[in-house]
């Protein structure tokens, strides 16, 4: 059965974080009868527990809806919900390729924010029709007309007739649906042409193998079709095709213009890379669709099992997560302090946080993550060049000619009151001022270039706390820049702990060394002997703290014959110790490695 493309609309929703993407998606599904109000679990598309708890969308999620429009025709809507956080811009850009249009939600109390702009530009770059929607008009502080003007001024997108809605209360949702039909073009494509299906996401299912989320651009695919991709020469027999409603629902076939999934007993996710094009073996398309640029991990961190014997479990967990997360990079790593583990690359700190939490929750593994690092370019005196993602691998100072660090272009949106504090922060973070634009009376856009290495510490938290949460922030990596960097080592009881080493700017070394030593003093529990904590640069000690030996660690109240209870108390103590890792003679709680990040340098 072929569908009438004229009655299909493929679109995604983009917005700044918290402007109401997932809520609107829920409302649309409810309105189109996809889910009854009674069955409705808040924010249906955020299916990961983690997503719902944190109120963020991490994975993009497609859903198919039927809508009987005012013109009497029935339409098929394929909606793709997208993440809003800057770390996941890549996921957004993928979903855009599968659509003809994008609903751009703007919070009518906050107006255009950093990711509103970033995502809107992404959509424009992908030739998508942009359909603005003004959300949260039910709130007292809403200023829908001003915000509509703002959208026109800043983004150059007509917004006067944008639906004024409240996704929360359901106000004017119908208008959104009608405008989707009116403004977003129907898909083009030829169902009789050779198959071209764009893989925009995939995940691994234990029973069906890899499930590819596809947008069919041309042709048709059905159960039994022999398929292959352009990047791999393996062929597969399609075992199932279907659509998302929002759970996967098998269909006989998918044809040009449709969004759905394909399963073909594919064992390895590598065989169906996201961005690749699927075609048929019998009648292959001549060339693939233009894919995506690969997501490059920006932040690197060591991930080690707390219990050294769980190395293989951790490997399995990471490989499973990688199946569904092309942006995650994994490489075996070996630390003198922490043993065998992995050096993982992430899109950003939130991505890292999410992966870490998923390992612990979904695989029930306790892990230690080391302080994140970025990748540095090291130019050696012998004329060779190397890329360092792990401070431990930095060659001796004598072999280094100079180093380069990644630089970002940052765009910060803020009410004018906070310009001062933000400039102070950026300066402290070694930022270079580029530009300042007054967007309107209430918003300023600040542009800075900053070293990425400063952003991965606590930039975001500091920005939020200095602006009472009003500022928003977006960045893109612009390149590398020569910089005076040094390796800061931490010594515990006289020995360097490689897992605590970081690369910092020379001018920051003393301050950070002192902060980290102080922090470690707080998190390392007292032990049977005194533990000196020292920070060193190139063998020179620049800071010192001491963890005193404990004086009392005994079951003092020990009368009576209740040995069982005493044993229980010791067992409890032992449990606590299991969360610790022995580094030489010193025992360190697993959170110590990451806590050195959270030094409060917001003086």
């Amino acid at each position, binding site marked *: 059965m072929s569908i009438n493309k004229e009655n299909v609309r493929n679109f995604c929703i983009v917005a700044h974080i918290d402007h109401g993407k997932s809520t609107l998606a829920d409302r649309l599904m409810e309105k189109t009868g996809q889910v009854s109000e009674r069955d409705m679990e808040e924010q249906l598309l955020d299916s990961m527990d983690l997503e719902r708890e944190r109120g963020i969308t991490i994975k993009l999620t497609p859903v198919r809806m039927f809508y009987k429009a005012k013109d009497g025709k029935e339409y098929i809507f394929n909606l793709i919900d997208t993440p809003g956080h800057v770390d996941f811009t890549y996921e957004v850009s993928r979903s855009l390729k599968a659509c003809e249009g994008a609903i751009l939600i703007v919070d009518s109390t906050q107006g255009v924010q950093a990711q509103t702009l970033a995502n809107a530009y992404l959509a424009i770059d992908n030739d998508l029709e942009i359909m603005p929607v003004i959300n949260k008009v039910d709130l007292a502080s809403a200023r829908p007309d001003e915000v509509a003007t703002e959208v026109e001024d800043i983004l150059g997108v007509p917004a006067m007739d944008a639906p004024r809605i409240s996704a929360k209360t359901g106000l004017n949702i119908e208008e959104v649906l009608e405008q989707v039909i009116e403004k977003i073009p129907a898909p083009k494509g030829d169902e009789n042409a050779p198959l071209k299906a764009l893989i925009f996401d995939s995940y691994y299912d234990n029973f069906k193998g890899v499930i590819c989320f596809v947008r069919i651009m041309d042709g048709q695919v059905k159960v039994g079709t022999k398929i292959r991709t352009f990047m791999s020469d393996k062929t597969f027999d399609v075992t199932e095709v279907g659509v998302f409603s929002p759970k996967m629902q098998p269909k006989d076939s998918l044809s040009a213009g449709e969004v759905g999934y394909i399963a073909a007993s594919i064992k390895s996710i590598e065989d169906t890379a996201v961005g690749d094009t699927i075609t048929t073996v019998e009648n292959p398309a001549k060339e693939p669709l233009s894919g995506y640029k690969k997501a490059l991990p920006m932040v690197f961190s060591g991930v080690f099992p707390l219990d050294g014997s769980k190395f293989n479990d951790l490997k399995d967990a990471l490989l499973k997560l990688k199946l569904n997360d092309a942006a995650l990079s994994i490489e075996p790593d070996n630390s003198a302090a922490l043993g065998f583990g992995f050096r993982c690359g992430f899109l950003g700190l939130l991505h890292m946080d999410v992966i870490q939490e998923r390992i612990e929750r979904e695989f029930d593994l306790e892990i230690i993550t080391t302080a994140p690092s970025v990748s540095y370019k090291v130019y050696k005196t012998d004329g060779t060049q190397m890329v360092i993602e792990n401070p431990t691998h930095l060659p001796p100072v004598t072999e280094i000619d100079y180093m380069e660090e990644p630089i970002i272009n940052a765009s910060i949106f803020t009410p004018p009151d906070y310009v001062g504090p933000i400039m102070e922060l950026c300066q402290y973070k070694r930022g270079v001022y580029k530009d300042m634009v007054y967007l309107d009376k209430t918003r300023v856009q600040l542009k800075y270039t900053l070293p990425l290495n400063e952003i991965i510490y606590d930039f975001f938290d500091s920005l939020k706390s200095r602006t009472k949460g009003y500022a928003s922030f977006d960045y893109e990596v612009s390149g590398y820049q020569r910089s005076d960097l040094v390796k800061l080592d931490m010594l515990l009881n006289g020995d360097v702990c490689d897992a605590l080493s970081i690369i910092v700017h020379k001018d920051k070394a003393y301050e950070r060394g002192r902060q980290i030593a102080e922090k470690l003093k707080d998190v390392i529990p007292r032990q049977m002997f005194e533990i000196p904590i020292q920070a060193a640069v190139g063998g020179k000690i620049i800071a010192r703290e001491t963890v005193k030996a404990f004086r*009392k660690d005994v079951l*003092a109240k020990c009368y009576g014959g209740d040995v069982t209870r005493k044993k229980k108390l010791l067992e409890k103590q032992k449990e606590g110790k299991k969360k610790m890792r022995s580094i030489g003679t010193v025992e360190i709680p697993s959170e110590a490695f990451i806590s050195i990040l959270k030094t409060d340098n917001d003086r």
Partner: protein
Amino acid sequence: MSGIYIHVPFCKQKCTYCDFASYPRELCKAESYFACLYREIDGRSKQFPGRVIDTIYIGGGTPSVVDAKFIAGAIRQVKKCFHVRETAEITIEINPGTVDEQKIKEYKSVGINRFSIGLQTGFDDQLKKLNRIHTAKDFLTCCNLLKGENISADVLIGLHDQTLEQVKKTVDLAIAGGVSHISVYALTPEVGTPIYTDYLNGELLSDDETADIYDGVREYLKAKGFDRYEVSNFCKQGFRSRHNMNYWKRGEYIGVGVSASSFMNDKRFTNTFSIDEYMNAVIYNKSPEISNDLIEEKDARFEVIMLALRTTDGLNVKEFNKKFGIDFDTEYKTQLLKKGKYLLRDGDNLKIKDEYLYVQNDILLEFM
């Protein structure tokens, strides 16, 4: 060696730090409680026939708050049901202000030959704060009644604003009372006790401050002729508590009464903490136990180590090897290597170095 522990779950009023099974308002049940206790003693003697008893310990609560005839009855019952050695050590815990000449006479008449007095501190304001029922002077009066007897005193450290000088004065008071044994316990704030609130509010001494006092008082006691023989226990030569030594040697003991714990035939079991439940069980010939665990060999080994290392005698490795049929040094090679510097090895004897006895948990955990 075998011991019997008899629990008396009554007192005049609860001390602020007490989390033992002791119920001041249930004192009226003493008569029926003891009737049940006698019955349990009889039952336990049939359950564990042929035991020779070396020590009996009557603890609480405050055993001295009940009529002496109940205590005497309990001892007579034990002697009737078990074979109690002539030389047995028979201890009773008493509190100042709850005994008179008559009571003590009655205790002695049934063979009680050791008196453990709850002194806690020699300062009346501190005693009052702990909700103790007596004054420092009452302690001396009590000791006077016990002239010439084998007396022990309990002393608490870690009290709010307590100083080493105060603890030394408390020790002086105990020595003036003629004690030959002193237990120095660090106040342990247990959840549910009034003192736990003080602890949460930071009103008790820190571990470091408590350790300072402990070290100071240990030195002071040594100068006065009291040697430490276990983490919290000090005595003049020849006055160790045999009952407690039996615990640390992992000897067998039967605990009778509410909340009492036993260790017999490789099993550890504990009675209910409720007086009513206890009496009901005993009357209807049911078990008053709320837990009963067989100790596996691995746990047994750890128990031997953990208990022995509390004492200054330490662990006899040869006996250990004989008991478990393994070689201690091979079995615990890594542990000994890792914690060796805190241990002292002298022939077959292994003990924790004196200066580390108060930070022993970290060592014990290795052997777990």
